[in-house]
């Protein structure tokens, strides 16, 4: 199953211009969403758009700035849910800017999708945990068997 969103767009503008549109709240609002972003590592911010009841989405995306590499890289968490601060979808947005001869290539990756408090999280943990336990049990039984044969 594809769990990662990837887009690549070329803009005939210098990285400085594109970077501004990714990191200045008033410019971001013009193409993305209303927000209170600040270019500060660890800054918590939100994007606000209209709620989408059919998706169980209250219209607020909760984010935190995770990585800044000026003019090159910007990473923030991307979480949303049905309301009251409840988070059901947890992911990460990675922006990468590549300077080209006559513009900038912008790479977007939105990945690491997890359903918070949901089956997937539990199942990953279970799958790992139980397999390890099962193998351990298997080993112990075998060792016990060998020990008794040797005795």
């Amino acid at each position, binding site marked *: 199953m594809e769990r990662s969103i990837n887009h690549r767009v070329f803009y005939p503008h210098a990285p400085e211009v594109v970077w501004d549109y990714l990191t200045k709240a008033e410019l971001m609002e013009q193409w993305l969403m209303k927000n209170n972003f600040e270019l500060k590592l660890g800054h918590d911010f939100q994007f606000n758009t209209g709620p989408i009841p059919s998706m169980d989405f209250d219209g607020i995306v909760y984010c935190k700035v995770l990585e800044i590499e000026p003019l090159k890289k910007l990473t923030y968490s991307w979480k949303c849910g049905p309301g009251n601060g409840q988070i059901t979808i947890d992911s990460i947005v990675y922006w990468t800017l590549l300077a080209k001869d006559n513009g900038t290539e912008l790479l977007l990756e939105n990945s690491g999708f997890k359903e918070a408090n949901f089956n997937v999280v539990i199942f990953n943990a279970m799958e790992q945990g139980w397999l390890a336990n*099962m193998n351990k049990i298997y080993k112990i039984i075998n060792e016990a068997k060998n020990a008794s044969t040797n005795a």
Partner: protein
Amino acid sequence: MLTMLSEKSLPINSLAEHFDMSRPAVSKHIKIMYNAGFISIEDIGRERYCTLKKDGFDELQKWISFFDNFWKGKLKNLETLLNNKIKK
């Protein structure tokens, strides 16, 4: 095991062949996954088939498709915005 089931339903016997575990250990593993609601078990002929319950996965996939389209649209907005900037 769940990864194998994500492709298709499988009889317990052929699932067991893929793992270096005793048959009782496999049965126990399956019982745990069944009790947790991750899989369903159905008798077809002489075999017991395990099927992955996809509710959780489909829900996540719905969100991923949603954001995929969302970003496509937003990046297009940015393109329009930047192109207008050139013209000015």
